[in-house]
């Protein structure tokens, strides 16, 4: 049915989000634990090392893991409080079936009943509408082993082409751009290169809130005298201290980078030796920015021309430099082009393959890097292989022991799967660790699509807003309840260790998938007795691919504090820095310049919708908030979305901080409190996206996709803002009390 079985209020009353405020036993209980388990934080691609304190079968606290080299004990607030997602009143403990007659909308059922129902519905839908009419959505909160298993499960057990993942909302623009320009989809540097840079250029990355540990690397560079350039429509906490701040208009990143390349060429700062020896197509890239003078750039981006020239001088004349970018330039209908415009700056100045040099994406999701490498992306097979490449398919078929024709072709991307559901082409869905109702753009459309599903099954540990629409919910495992590996922002494979077993009758995700595969009659391909056995097959499947894990073992990964891929054979030390000596990963060893001509975003402002909306994260919440909106101390830090706007805009609207404003786009309308700050462009408003329903920023955002990466354009929409009724007290981040205007008087 995929509609809510009972009212949202009844669902929330039973399944949350409720707030876990204190560790098991309460704050007054003595600090008492049996053991400390070395593992990593589940929130974000930094994958900080952390020690979880375990008492019996509960995680009761944490201790900094000083010896893990990436973060040396440092953690953001999410990492500090992540342990409160355990022993949680909302934790799903038994399989559930949709039941409009039950008070809370679901009734419990046995695993046999639940799994048989899922399998029979898969069969019914696929018999009626074809194999591809049943789709799967996955998430990169999953380990490499589970990501690999999901990829194999969808292709060989469900036999559907339509598998995609929520990494589609993360770094896919960078993935495509890096692969085509440089031959490999990975940040080219270990983070230890950042302190060696003479200039650090942060473009579209709110490092302080979305990758907090990276700030310490940038400060280490600055302690050596490095200059910092930041390009962002907001003065983020890191931008505040920058040497050069480029406060650009949303959607103009490629114009900014094109102008910088133009200035670099005009001033003779191009590293001709590097360009001639290690790249091709520089001429085309130069021709594409011939018209991008500083005054043109200033007009398009809104950044004063002298600042653009100064940024170009710093980047162009520094011996070493790192350009770090994230969703701010990637969440665009030209996300790939934006990344290419950055890569072009790195190639033109020879900033690759040396210490302190590189253009790197800051992967946002926990296992965003590793997840896509292992093949649960609609166009990829394990080892970052291409699902349309006959040789790649043949190799993976040989590992899987199947006929090559049994591997389906390229499927639809995440947003396109939802559109196909809306169109009635996809009738059934299995989702694991993905909350599209909150995280996909145009949430009203997503809700309409869910309503059209004939059958919807979910594997998750909490009943997310999307899972509320499910017919069957299978309780899976939290990060700390399973073991395996994940791959961090640096391309470093690390070991996730199990701290506790799943509670109640919840099961490990991989066991659920294998059980389903058995019942689908495809058990011969899933003879795994442990995640370690999955890892062993995964590294063989990756062998010879660009993301080659073949030489890794769990034991080595732990002993060596992680291993950077590629690690093609036993004893290989791994590859922290890519492209050493200017040898790129294309067969001819050369990098490709890609000509980038700036073009506007899919939606531009007009008289009806005169302002730019850009969306993003706050430091205390993670993605769709399924976990972090259930952790009391994190919710208290930033309880609900605020609409940031400049005092000049607020003045014309007659709005003060705390006033409720109505923000409308062509997709929808929401009301929320304003926060009037001088740290955002006057033509732009910002809303964080972690909340569901009436508080969802994605009610407003646009489903326009990048033609290559299929990433949605979260970072640019056209909106109208008006004053609405009501006012709340906003003290710093904390929204303390809802008050009506009458009460205020």
């Amino acid at each position, binding site marked *: 049915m995929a509609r809510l079985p009972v009212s949202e209020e009844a669902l929330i009353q039973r399944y949350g989000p409720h707030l876990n405020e*204190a560790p098991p036993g*309460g*704050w007054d209980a003595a*600090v008492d634990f049996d053991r400390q388990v070395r593992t990593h934080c589940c929130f974000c691609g930094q994958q900080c090392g952390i020690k979880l304190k375990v008492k019996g079968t509960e995680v009761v*606290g*944490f201790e*900094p893991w*000083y010896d893990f080299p990436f973060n040396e*004990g*440092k*953690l*953001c*607030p999410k*990492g*500090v409080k992540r342990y409160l997602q355990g022993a949680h009143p909302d934790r799903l403990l038994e399989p559930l079936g949709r039941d409009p007659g039950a008070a809370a909308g679901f009734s419990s059922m046995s695993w046999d009943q639940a799994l048989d129902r899922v399998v029979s519905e898969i069969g019914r839908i696929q018999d009626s509408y074809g194999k591809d009419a049943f789709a799967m959505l996955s998430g990169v909160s999953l380990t490499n082993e589970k990501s690999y298993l999901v990829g194999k499960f969808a292709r060989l057990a469900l036999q559907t082409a339509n598998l995609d993942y929520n990494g589609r909302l993360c770094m896919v623009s960078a993935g495509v751009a890096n692969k085509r320009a440089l031959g490999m989809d990975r940040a080219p540097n270990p983070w230890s290169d950042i302190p060696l840079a003479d200039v650090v250029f942060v473009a579209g990355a709110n490092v*302080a*809130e979305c990758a*907090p*540990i990276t*700030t*310490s690397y940038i*400060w*280490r560079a*600055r*302690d050596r*005298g490095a200059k910092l350039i930041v390009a962002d429509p907001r*003065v*983020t*906490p*890191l*931008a*505040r*201290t*920058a040497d*050069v*701040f480029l*406060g650009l208009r949303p959607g103009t990143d490629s114009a900014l980078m094109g102008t910088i390349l133009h200035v670099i060429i005009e001033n003779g700062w191009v590293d001709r030796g590097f360009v001639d020896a290690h790249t091709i197509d520089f001429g085309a890239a130069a021709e594409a920015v011939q018209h991008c003078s500083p*005054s043109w750039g*200033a*007009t398009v981006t*809104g*950044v*004063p021309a002298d*600042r653009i020239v100064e940024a170009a001088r710093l980047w162009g004349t520094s011996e070493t430099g790192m350009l770090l970018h994230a969703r701010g330039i990637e969440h665009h209908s030209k996300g790939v082009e934006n990344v290419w415009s950055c890569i072009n700056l790195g190639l033109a100045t020879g900033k690759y393959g040396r210490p302190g040099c590189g253009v790197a994406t800051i992967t946002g999701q926990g296992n965003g890097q590793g997840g896509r490498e292992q093949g649960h992306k609609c166009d990829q097979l394990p080892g970052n292989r291409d699902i349309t490449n006959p040789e790649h398919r043949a190799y993976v078929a040989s590992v899987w022991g199947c006929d090559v024709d049994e591997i389906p072709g390229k499927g639809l991307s995440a947003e396109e799967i939802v559109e196909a559901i809306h169109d009635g082409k996809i009738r059934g869905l299995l989702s694991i660790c993905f909350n599209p109702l909150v995280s996909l753009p145009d949430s009203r459309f997503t809700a309409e699509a869910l309503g059209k599903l004939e059958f919807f099954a979910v594997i998750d540990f909490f009943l997310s807003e999307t899972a509320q629409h499910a017919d069957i919910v299978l309780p899976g495992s939290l990060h700390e309840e399973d073991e395996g590996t994940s791959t961090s922002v640096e391309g470093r494979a690390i070991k996730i260790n199990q701290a506790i077993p799943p509670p109640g009758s919840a099961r490990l995700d991989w066991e659920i998938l294998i059980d389903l595969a058995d019942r689908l009659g495809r058990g011969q391909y899933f003879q795994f007795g442990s995640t370690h056995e999955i890892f062993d097959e995964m590294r063989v499947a990756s062998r010879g691919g660009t993301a080659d894990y073949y030489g890794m073992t769990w034991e080595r990964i732990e002993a060596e504090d992680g291993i950077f891929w590629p690690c093609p054979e036993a004893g290989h030390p791994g590859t922290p820095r890519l492209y050493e000596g200017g040898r790129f990963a294309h067969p001819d060893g050369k990098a490709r310049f890609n000509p980038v001509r700036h073009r506007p975003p899919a939606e531009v402002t007009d008289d009806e919708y005169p302002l730019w909306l850009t969306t993003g994260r706050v*430091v*205390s919440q993670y993605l769709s908030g399924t976990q972090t909106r259930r952790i009391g*101390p*994190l919710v208290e*830090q930033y309880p609900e979305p605020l609409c940031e706007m*400049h*005092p*000049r805009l607020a003045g014309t609207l007659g709005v003060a*901080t705390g006033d409720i404003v109505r923000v409308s786009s062509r997709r929808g309308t929401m009301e929320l409190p304003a*926060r009037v*700050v*001088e*740290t955002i*462009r*006057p033509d732009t408003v910002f809303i964080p996206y972690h909340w569901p329903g009436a508080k969802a920023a994605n009610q407003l955002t646009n489903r326009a996709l990048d033609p290559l990466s299929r990433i949605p354009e979260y970072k640019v929409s056209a909106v109208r803002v008006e004053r609405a009724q009501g006012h709340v007290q906003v003290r*710093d981040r904390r929204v303390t009390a809802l008050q009506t205007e009458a009460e205020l008087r």
Partner: protein
Amino acid sequence: MSHLISDRVFVIDQSRCIGCEACVQACEECGTHRGQSLIHLEYIDRAMSTQTAPMVCMHCEDPTCAEVCPADAIKQNENGVVQSALKPRCIGCSNCVLACPFGVPKYFSRPDQMMKCDMCYDRSSVGLKPMCASVCPSQALWFGTLDEFGATREGALIFELRFGNQAVPTKVGTVVHDISAGPINVTVPVPGLWQEDPFGLEAAVP
């Protein structure tokens, strides 16, 4: 006097703070005051800037909090670390809360006692970093030896702050970039820098 706790010193560089509150969240995880965060973190003026300021106890040489305590409940230990009020003596009057020039002590109605940052004495006394300086992502809060500071960090350290005519020597160091200029004034942009006009609104953008 020595600024060292064991062989290490606590340092604050307010200019590096990113306001993430990892310190606030981690402080209440400390074993001696679970559930009660004793560190302070404030926006200077969010309408103007994202600048935030973390404040741990500066561990004054002659602590004002102890001087104004009518019950003589606030003591320094042998390393000069200023402790929370002694529970049997504390009368909950909050004189210390009002008098501390840094606004550090906190009064808790339950258990009717002033509690304050003790530099995680349970950790620092056994060679571990305090919780806040352990987790701080930007290392605005830093704990280490003076040699390490000199080798890895920009800026100089001052160990005395002035409030009117009162000089307050502290064990906690404050980072300054020009030692003769005193602490960094984060509220007033330096003229000529972009912070005066982040979006070029006053400049003539064509």
